[in-house]
């Protein structure tokens, strides 16, 4: 199995979620991260002349664990749905998963994901 770890723009979440569902991939987890990359941050201003450039931007991390065979398909779905073509679109990482367990039943292996 593989864990597909995708860092995406928050505003692309709904697109990515729907695309995955359409592709038959329902199970997933989302968490908030702040990321730094080539992309510039937002400038925040204070009372007077004070401004802050926030060098990190809010991103979402989507994690989907899939059978080895599905890995490329999921990568394509996510990268298609998350793309805007601008700097800051994010990354997808593919990480090996040795085993998986469904807590409810104790089943292990590919049936569990």
């Amino acid at each position, binding site marked *: 199995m593989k864990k597909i770890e995708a860092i995406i723009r928050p505003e692309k979440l709904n697109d990515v979620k729907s695309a995955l569902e359409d592709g038959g991939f329902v199970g997933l987890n989302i968490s908030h991260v702040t990321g730094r990359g080539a992309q510039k941050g937002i400038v925040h201003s204070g009372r007077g002349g004070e401004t802050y450039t926030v060098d990190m931007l809010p991103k979402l991390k989507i994690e989907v664990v899939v059978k080895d065979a599905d890995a490329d398909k999921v990568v394509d779905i996510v990268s298609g749905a998350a793309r805007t073509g601008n700097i*800051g679109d994010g990354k997808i990482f593919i990480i090996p998963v040795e085993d998986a367990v469904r807590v409810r039943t104790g089943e292990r292996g590919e049936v569990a994901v």
Partner: protein
Amino acid sequence: MIDSGDTAWMLMSTALVMLMTPGLAFFYGGLVRSKNVLSTMMHSFIVIGIIGVLWVVVGYTLAFGPDAGGGLIGNFDYFGLKDVGQEPGPYAPTIPHLVFMVFQMTFAIITPALITGAFAERAKFGPFLLFMAVWSLVVYAPIAHWVWGDSGWLLEYGALDFAGGTVVHINAGAAALVAALLYGKRRGYGKDPMEPHNIPFVLLGAALLWFGWFGFNAGSALGANGVAANAFVVTFVAASTAMVTWVLLSWQLNGKPSAVGAAAGAVAGLVAITPAAGFVDTMPAIAIGVGAGAFCYGAVQLRIKLKLDDSLDVVGVHGVGGAWGAFATGIFAVATVGGGAGLIDGEASQMGRQLVGIGATMGYSFVMTFIILKVIDKLFGLRVSDDEEEIGVDAAQHGERGYVFEIGGTGFVGIPEAAAEPAASEAPAPAGSGGGGL
């Protein structure tokens, strides 16, 4: 005859006391876990709704209608506010009867709301509503009649209660004790941490309560006069003193001066001065404040030791604080302030009369609340299911959650910058999603 100054002050006082109930909603709401903030706040808000209707229809006449006999309860002469109009009524000669009625309504609202702290984070909404409505008519209205109503027996007997030490606080405290016992402990109580989720809200609530309490106590003079001035000042001073006392005690005994303790201490002082506000001088108010801080702090510690899940310490603060204040009135009242005399004014027997007032209120409230809650529990059940408690009462009972901090709303980490450049000029503005600089 209507006096415009007295009327102005009483209108304002009524608005102030009304604001106390939302204040209480924040005080209580901040103290619970975030998954129960709405249900806890709704406890207070919806009471404004229910009692705001019940009181004008029937509550007021039960409490303040002409005595139905024995000083126990009012008759139905004021049913639906019949004869309660723009002219002064029997209780206050210089303001419209309607103003006296609505001022009292705000007291009738906050008293049941106070009790809700005893069963926060586990009450089923429907049965709770029923409890509030029944309690208001069966417990609050009679006790108000005894103490302040036409020929009320405690009034005639000579128990002093300027602004509600017995009617409001001891009454709510006794009912809260019953409620804490009958509702039972929250799941995980004593095992899981149940820290306040929003202490700034607790402080907001305390501030609104304090602000509103000026209307509660100084408004109980029923006019803008010297007694109101006295009540205002001693209210302020007792709250300040009790706040400092509680903070110092928590510092000494728990190692750190607690912000929640500051809020709780201020409320304890406000409770304790309530029955005394129109009867005592300022220096005794300091003594009352110190006592309030110390006794209520001690009561809360005892409550923790006894593992009683009176979740937001209604018994410790309102019950104990109210009892101390009522008793202290018997000690410190001097006739030159508001007409009543206590121990230091040579009237030692007043302490006995105060004890009778405290005891009668406690006993009646305790027994009647027990009966009401037992019956409701039998018929409908008081608590949410274990699952609902786990998920949180907000989602389970109200289908809502208090906060939704969106993606991007939290979790930023950044670096400051000297220059005052707008964002757009710094980043190559991407054409697509993200706009100026994102």
